[in-house]
């Protein structure tokens, strides 16, 4: 099991009030799965995504990622595990604006302590996978939105993490470009990568082989994407 989440809770203090963002969440994801986490804003999906991404730790419960117990890790260990195990793909791309595509893609390898020459070779290979090797010396502002997201995907792939974690990856793209990215994800899934996609769009989640629907900090449905992505119609209509 690549991901094993057991009864995870997370609460925040906001203005003196306690917000229970996650109220005991449990699920598992195997290697090679493509799974969507779908929910409306405020459902707790962002909190879950932060915990899955090792950017945050749960208040209680256990999160195992690729055999590591993340719930007890200190800040340095979390940074290291993010570097090794997770490839992030963000809605807003999160590329460094002053760096070229190549330098952006190299970044995870910089923090892994890999030498310049090997970094370069691996970054070029990753850019080739997303079909952007001809744009590697361009800065983000010289690229289209779709190209930027491809650079971000290349950056997520370059360090060969066990998990690709995408947060609303098509949210800032027009539908045609979004479609390209989804195709790219399909290819990555076919190539054996494990993908977790966090989204508020049921139509996107419906295209994933599996979807977990979350409401008010709890999992309300977990199954085949097309079956559980859409919330059930309220009774009585």
């Amino acid at each position, binding site marked *: 099991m690549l991901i094993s989440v057991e009864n995870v809770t997370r609460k925040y203090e906001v203005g003196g009030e306690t917000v229970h963002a996650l109220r005991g969440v449990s699920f598992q994801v195997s290697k090679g799965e493509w799974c969507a986490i779908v929910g409306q804003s405020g459902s707790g999906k962002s909190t879950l995504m932060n915990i899955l991404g090792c950017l945050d730790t749960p208040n209680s419960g256990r999160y195992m990622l690729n055999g590591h117990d993340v719930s007890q890790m200190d800040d340095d260990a979390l*940074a*290291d595990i993010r570097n090794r195990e997770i490839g992030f793909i963000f809605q807003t791309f999160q*590329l460094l604006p002053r760096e070229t595509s190549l330098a952006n893609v190299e970044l995870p390898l910089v923090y892994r302590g890999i030498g310049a020459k090997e970094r370069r070779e691996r970054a070029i290979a990753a850019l080739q996978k997303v079909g952007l090797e001809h744009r590697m010396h361009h800065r983000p502002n010289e690229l289209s939105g779709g190209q930027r997201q491809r650079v971000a995907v290349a950056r997520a792939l370059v360090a060969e993490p066990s998990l690709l974690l995408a947060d609303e990856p098509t949210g800032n793209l027009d539908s045609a470009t979004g479609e390209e990215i989804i195709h790219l994800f399909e290819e990555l899934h076919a190539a054996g990568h494990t993908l977790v996609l966090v989204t508020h769009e049921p139509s996107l989640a419906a295209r994933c082989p599996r979807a977990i629907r979350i409401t008010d900090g709890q999992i309300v449905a977990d199954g085949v994407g097309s079956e559980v992505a859409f919330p059930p119609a309220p009774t009585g209509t």
Partner: protein
Amino acid sequence: MSFKVDAGENARIAIQALRANRMRTVLTTVGIGIGVATLLAIVGVIQGLNASFAEQLNKLGANGLYVSRSPSIVIGDWWKYRNRPDLTPEHAEALRPLLTRAELVVPSTSTRGDVTREGNELTSISITGTEEGYLLSRGYTMAAGRFLTAGEAQSNQRVTVLGADAASGLFPVGSAVGQTVKIEGQSYRVVGVLAAKGKVLTENPDLVAVIPMGVFRQQFGTFRSIQIGVIAKEGVSLDSLEDEVLGAMRRVRRLDPTEDENFNINRPEMLAKTYDQLTGALFAVAGGIGFITLLVGGIGIMNIMLVSVRERTREIGIRRALGARRRTIVIQFLFESAAVSAFGGFLGAVVGLGSVRIVAEISPLAAVVDPMVLIGGIVFSGLVGLIFGIWPAARAANLDPIEALRHE
């Protein structure tokens, strides 16, 4: 697995960040640059002062000491020396047979006066009355003619030896030797011209007329206390010479063992001590000013780094998400602030060196800069950047990655 980020990568990030805000970087470096330039200029001038002072000591004759009525530089209660008895040439005569460790015992005294020669006039130049040993004891050499002889010194002949500048001032064309000049109205025959020694601070040892001691006392009176130069024999230390001179002078002056000395033995290094006292205070004040300027520059850097951290919050979030540890972020920002500061230090060092050069050109001070001071300036300003970068870097590292990624 190593998570060490190499220095090259940090340097690249720092240069990129600094280049992205060129104007801001330049303005920041100016602050630290001024501090370093000030410090360097001050150090340069003081080193120059030291060098020219050391040179002056050499010209005075470092292997000798001087007996006089009072110290050469009096700080404080100068009046306590007022009632001491004068030193006379007779003291020198009495001293000479008592000193076994001395090579030369040379009485000398001087005043200021006008030296003229039909149409050419030198006003208020140094007129020195002395003996034949003076040439050697003061480290002069002859350019033309000869120095005063022992015979002339005894026989009170009106002869003079002119310093190089005095000779050229009075005799712009032709040789001075054999000519006649008037010193304060009295005629003297020029028997020799001294080779130029070069200016020492404000004193010009080449603008001088040297005459026999006896003639000097005839013309200018005997009320003047003289100075007795004592030059050590080869291999005799100044300490042992001073011991001997002290004992001999006490005998000549017939002092009881309980009485204080009523004369003074000046050593060039005592002069150096006085000099150190004077420049030490100057150095402390100037150093303080330079330090405060650096402090202000350092605060400027801290300010800019805080702005930079704020502007680059997203960047920090991205780096943290991709696996940068807190320490890595700290090092990145420290590197940046040290780099901008060291760059300012480099610019300041160049400006400081330039101003030291200018001081050396336009003033009598021989200002010099030790290249180590230059390197020190760059390293020191880098350290200032490092210290003032700590707080901004810590702030950057302590940002919550989740919040930082959301930052607009």
